[in-house]
């Protein structure tokens, strides 16, 4: 075994236990240092996010990674949790399964929100932290670099992370941006104080919105909300005038009846002079009479409309899974091929050294018999010998590389050792 993994995610570990198991950056650094002292010569990376805690260990020959049970105990000890509790919920993998798992994690295929992009940064941070604690090496280095490459390919070659999944992001990016080219010259009217208004305004501000008016039935509450949302308060009594001046309305009141009826809107419509209006009605029950959405120039979206769009995007992401998994599979096979090929390096080096030694001895003998050769002729003959040796070695080395793609080439290595009398 060269690679080992233990870890738990939102799927396998209950939230209460996940909270206890999670590592802060300082705790993770401390854990890595402790691992290095306890298992010298082994490589390790610890990935801890709000949805997963995973330990990737690696080592070769005399320093193979510790067995999974030791890794579980190590995690339990670091977080002060009983090992038997963790043992029942943590997954264990070895070798190629570890590679496939990491590549899937980095590509967002194992995330709670399929294809979410933040995980790539978290994987990078985990690797960087391990580098700083000097617990990485050629195995984890190669594996994490390949994981990041895989994530990049999945992001660019599939549409997995393209469509947005949250209601505020879909509302702004897919609908409001479809109507308006820019937001810095638009008036945003916020009705009510629902939680989603904050998130929607965040996206609107990122898009450039600056002129924000907050209207609430209670003036004092409107003042507080406006200060919190970075806007200015408006009076509920001026609702018609505010509607007439607005370009985009985000409505999240807790009212049990529509706040903006068709009649109220008709009064505002006259003063709008034909300007288009986007209404994001995120309240349940709805704040805007649905009939308003039938008026020309009004683009009204209820929470159900936006939810349906999010669901369509979610299904679209699911459809990209086969293509993303194919990339993960291809990259994992490539990485494992390279890893297996690494194990042939000592044999190849011995083989080359042996041939080179024999070649040098023969050349010395030849040059002694032909003392009249000048330096240029000697160099030419030496190069011819080297080319000859390289050509003879080419076929066995190619066979070794090809064999490595499907697993460690033990049979070929044994044959080479016996044929050319190579030492272990």
């Amino acid at each position: 075994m060269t690679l080992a993994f233990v870890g738990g995610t939102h799927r396998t570990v209950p939230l209460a236990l996940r909270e206890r198991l999670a590592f802060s950056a300082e705790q993770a650094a401390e854990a890595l240092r402790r691992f290095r002292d306890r298992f010298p010569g082994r490589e390790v990376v610890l990935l801890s996010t709000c949805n997963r805690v995973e330990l990737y260990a690696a080592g070769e020959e005399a320093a193979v990674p510790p067995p999974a049970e030791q890794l579980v105990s190590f995690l339990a000890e670091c977080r002060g949790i009983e090992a038997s509790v963790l043992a029942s919920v943590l997954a264990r993998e070895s070798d190629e399964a570890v590679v496939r798992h990491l590549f899937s994690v980095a590509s967002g295929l194992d995330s709670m929100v399929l294809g979410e992009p933040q995980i790539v940064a978290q994987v990078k941070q985990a690797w960087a932290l391990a580098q700083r604690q000097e617990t990485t090496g050629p195995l984890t280095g190669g594996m994490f670099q390949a994981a990041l490459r895989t994530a990049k390919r999945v992001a660019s070659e599939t549409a997995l992370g393209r469509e947005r999944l949250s209601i505020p992001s879909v509302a702004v990016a897919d609908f409001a941006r479809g109507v308006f080219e820019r937001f810095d010259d638009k008036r945003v009217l916020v009705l009510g104080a629902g939680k989603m208004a904050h998130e929607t305004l965040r996206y609107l501000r990122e898009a450039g919105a600056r002129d924000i008016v907050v209207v609430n039935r209670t003036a004092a509450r409107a003042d507080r909300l406006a200060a919190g949302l970075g806007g200015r308060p408006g009076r509920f009594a001026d609702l018609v005038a505010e509607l007439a001046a607005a370009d985009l309305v985000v409505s999240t009141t807790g009212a049990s009846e529509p706040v903006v009826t068709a009649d109220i809107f008709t009064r505002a419509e006259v003063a709008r002079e034909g300007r288009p209006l986007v209404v994001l009605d995120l309240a349940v029950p709805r704040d805007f009479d649905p009939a308003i959405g039938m008026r020309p120039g009004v683009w009204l979206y209820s929470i159900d409309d936006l939810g349906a769009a999010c669901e369509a995007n979610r299904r679209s992401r699911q459809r990209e899974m086969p293509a993303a998994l194919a990339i993960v599979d291809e990259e994992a096979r490539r990485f494992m091929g390279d890893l297996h090929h690494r194990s042939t390096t000592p044999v190849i080096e011995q083989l080359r050294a042996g041939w080179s030694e024999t070649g040098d001895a023969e050349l010395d003998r030849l040059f002694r018999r032909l003392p009249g050769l000048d330096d240029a002729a000697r160099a030419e003959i030496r190069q011819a010998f080297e080319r000859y040796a390289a050509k003879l070695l080419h076929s066995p080395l190619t066979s070794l590389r090809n064999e490595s793609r499907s697993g460690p080439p033990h049979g070929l290595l044994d044959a080479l050792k016996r044929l050319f009398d190579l030492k272990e």
Partner: protein
Amino acid sequence: MTAFISGISVVCFAASYLVALGCEASRPLFRSGVRGALLVGFAAAGFFAHTLFLAWRAATEPAVPLSSAFDWYLLAAWLLAGGYLWLLRANPRTQVGLFVLPVVLGLVGAAQLSSRAPFPQSPATQIWGAIHGSFNLAASVAVAGGAVAGLMWLIQATRLARKRTPARGLRLPSLELLASTTSRAGQVAAWTAAAGFISGLVLNAVNRRHGLLETVPWTDPVVLRMAMLVAWLVAAALAMRALARRPDAARVGAWLSLVSFAVLTASILWGVLGTTRHGVPPAHAAATNEAAP
């Protein structure tokens, strides 16, 4: 270098535009990491070859760029292709090429079917001829650009009204940008077409005085189609202005721009298929009259 430039043909840049259109059209079908670069590369290469082709004709022909129907169509296509490249740079995530490039290719196709023989010119008519041709060119490009923007507005508005997220590979500019483009194009088209018509009347009077070309009668198909086009474009521009403060102004503007494009296409076909004395020397005009029923 001269041999290279003189070797550029219409097929060179038409093929480049066609490949760029293929890249745009393939977006909904599959994802590719190199398509964006291929698209920009072929569109830019096509535009570069197109520019060199027109520059070569301007340097080697005595009376280009607007001296024949062939050059006129190619110049219109060149302006639209330049506009497309600018949009590609300004809005790289939108698939505007899907709408602009077919018009560009259509104009290149029309050029291939048109006469390359230059209209007869004299120093007396050259200036008025250039003014007449330039205004008509500007009007036609504005009509085509407005129609493309209007069509995109209708598609985008339908998507937003159905509350659907953008289809894969078909992300369009905002309604705000498309509506303002349609409206401006409509105004430009109306006033340049009117100026083109008036300058045509002046050109006709100058021709009559110098006797270089046959006088074009009021009943000539070219005069009638231009009058019809100008009347429609001015009426559409006035209607768009009158309706500007209505909530459905953008939708009406989009439909008007499409009708304007249909009227332009019909008037071009009428001019091509009908018998005309427009731009014909006196001897030819006489022959045309004899052949006409």
